[in-house]
């Protein structure tokens, strides 16, 4: 099956992700896929969950922290500014404390905690994670393309969902039990029903946010996850390992795309020994990829003569990925 057929035969898969090691072409493929779908008349959002996002570079537009930016008709791109989101969020918490207790100033101890929490390393990932939920539940686009972070982070991101989920379940249970005790005391004293536990509601809200996000990541009907690799030994081994891990998290693997394939036709021409050796090595690894991943390899993408930035190059990449464009 080709990449094009995967899209055409599964029109319900509206969340598209490219994963793989750093620098193999995830952002390039995200942009090219977005371009191709937009050409077909779908409204597409390509967004980055990487704190070091590179969508701005590939589209040659500064889109960092600007919300969804229209790149061309139907194609929007977004880079999440995690720092700003964290700052706004902290301010929201402070304001809530001031309003709830009618204070003019957040107590020092509490303020210190708010500041310290923001410095935690997991904070940035969590903030992005949370914003992604806002983006995907908005339902404004036909397709959502996640420009994922390199493998290790992506796994962290996925496992975070299940850790969060278990944690929330535990404290929700504790909170519910606390509610019971309050009620018992209230009944004994024959006072009215206790006021509804706001914390419990807050916990349920958090749980629902996390479930939405991790639900999408593991939904076989709606999500397609593609692995990007190149014909090199280490990459093949790492990809195989990562694919096994992802499968454990129930990520619906939709196929593999081999990038940076030096065109084999070159060997017919007068080429230096260096290139000839590379071609030979590549042929071996392409054979290995065929053995290891079999029919799940959807397409081979050639190494271009220059890097892929700007829309004209993205259009060429889309042709390479999906076959020549046809007007629709």
């Amino acid at each position, binding site marked *: 099956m080709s990449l094009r057929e995967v899209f055409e035969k599964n029109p319900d898969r509206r969340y598209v992700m490219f994963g793989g090691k750093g620098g193999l072409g995830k952002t390039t493929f995200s942009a090219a896929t977005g371009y191709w779908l937009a050409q077909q008349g779908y409204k597409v959002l390509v967004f980055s969950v990487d704190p070091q996002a590179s969508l701005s570079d590939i589209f040659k537009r500064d889109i960092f922290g600007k919300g969804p930016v229209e790149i061309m008709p139907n194609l929007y791109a977004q880079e999440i500014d995690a720092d700003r989101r964290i700052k706004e969020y902290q301010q929201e918490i402070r304001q809530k404390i001031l309003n709830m207790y009618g204070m003019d100033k957040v107590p020092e101890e509490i303020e210190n905690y708010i500041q310290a929490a923001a410095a935690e390393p997991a904070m940035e990932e*969590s903030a992005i*994670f949370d914003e992604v939920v806002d983006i995907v539940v908005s339902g404004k686009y036909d397709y959502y393309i996640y420009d994922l972070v390199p493998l290790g982070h992506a796994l962290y991101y996925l496992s975070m969902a299940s*850790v969060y989920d278990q944690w929330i379940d535990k404290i929700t249970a504790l909170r519910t039990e606390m509610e019971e*005790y309050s009620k*018992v*005391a209230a009944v004994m004293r024959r006072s009215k029903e206790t006021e509804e536990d706001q*914390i419990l509601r*807050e*916990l349920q*809200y958090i749980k629902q946010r996390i479930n939405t996000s991790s639900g999408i990541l593991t939904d076989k009907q709606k999500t397609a996850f593609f692995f990007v690799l190149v014909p090199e030994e280490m990459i093949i081994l790492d990809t195989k390992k990562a694919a096994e891990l992802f499968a454990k998290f129930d990520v619906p693997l939709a196929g593999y795309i081999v990038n940076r394939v030096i065109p084999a036709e070159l060997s017919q021409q007068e080429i230096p020994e260096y290139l000839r050796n590379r071609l030979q090595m590549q042929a071996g690894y392409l054979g290995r990829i065929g053995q290891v991943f079999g029919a799940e390899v959807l397409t081979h993408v050639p190494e271009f003569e220059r890097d892929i930035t700007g829309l004209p190059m993205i259009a060429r990449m889309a042709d390479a990925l999906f076959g020549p464009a046809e007007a629709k």
Partner: protein
Amino acid sequence: MPEETKKRNWFDGVKSVLYGMAGHDMARYALKTRGSMEHLFILITMGDLLGIPILPPYYSLRLLPYVVPQISTWKRRMLREKDLTDALA
């Protein structure tokens, strides 16, 4: 005082006595248990405040406003070996 009100006052008095005899201890116990759980809850959500990182902090911040009043008593309790109410119980 009208007969109705007198009667109710007397009835309320009996209720209070009965509550004192039977219910009060149970109510106090329930509240005390709840108090301990409240502190346990703050520990697992705001553990960082004592230097025990337990939880991804992003969502724990969402809960912070609700526990602001308990924070100081909680810290004291966590850092104290024995609780005063232990002696009372």
